[in-house]
């Protein structure tokens, strides 16, 4: 086994373990913290695939923003600490069985699909993909209009969020 495979296995175990804890842990704040670990595991996966940009996005958006938003949502929810009974019911084994069947079917379908066998094109080593993306985003022949529209969209989201959520102090 290569070092990369060992790192992949450790990451996979941590990611899946964290994901299981997210749904089984009773304390919602703890669940949010486990979710952060899971998202970090996914970020490491992107890193292992040399997807630099996705790694950065995963850390900045998912760990930085989504996790914070989730913790705030938990803090703002009323009666969040009230015991609401067990999180599993009598039919849990049926749901587990169905998930297993679905998972096996998906794996089987993907393994017989021809696209599954294609090897990844090897990136030229001296090309920084983030740099290519950055140049394309602002070049007039590239995506400059969507880039600027994204800014306007974010402005609309910002103003919309403030209009909806901000209560003027009386």
């Amino acid at each position, binding site marked *: 086994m290569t070092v990369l495979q060992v790192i992949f296995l450790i990451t996979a175990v941590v990611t899946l373990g964290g994901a299981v804890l997210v749904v089984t842990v009773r304390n919602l704040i703890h669940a949010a913290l486990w979710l952060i670990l899971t998202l970090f595991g996914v970020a490491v996966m992107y890193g292992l695939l040399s997807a630099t940009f996705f790694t950065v996005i995963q850390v*900045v958006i998912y760990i930085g923003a989504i996790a914070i*938003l989730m913790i705030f949502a938990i803090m*703002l929810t009323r009666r969040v600490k009230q015991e609401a009974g067990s999180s599993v019911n009598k039919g849990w084994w049926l749901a587990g069985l169905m998930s297993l069947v679905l998972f096996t079917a998906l794996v089987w379908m993907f393994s017989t699909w021809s696209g599954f066998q294609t090897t990844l094109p090897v990136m030229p*080593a001296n090309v920084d993909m983030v740099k290519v*993306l950055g140049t394309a985003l602002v070049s007039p022949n590239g995506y400059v209009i969507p880039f600027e529209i994204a*800014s306007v969209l*974010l402005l609309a989201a910002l103003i919309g*969020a*403030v209009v909806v*959520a901000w209560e003027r102090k009386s």
Partner: protein
Amino acid sequence: MLNDWIFIGIFLLLAPIFPALALLIPRLIAPRKPNPLKTETYECGIETYGETWVQFKVQYYIFALVFLIFDIEIVFLFPWAVAFDQLSMFAVLEGVLFIMILVAGLFYIWRKGVLEWV
């Protein structure tokens, strides 16, 4: 390419060692004579009451919302910043325009009083 990741891996391995050492060294060299009164939890010198898991009202949730928007802005600015040294003047100004549009939003919420601490 992979060597860049090794640095991050080394940081990930080294980072937990520092707080662990800070906790471990006092445990080894500090005198420990605990008694029930010493180990009791206290809060600003007075005895605690009620549960420790309290849900306080997060009045600054609006900051989280605003942060979210500027966090997404980073997604677009990050590749722009990485490619900064190869960009033409026009492309740099495009990025500046992007920021300016969002600065207008910042001024809007500033005037609205959102940035004032409650």
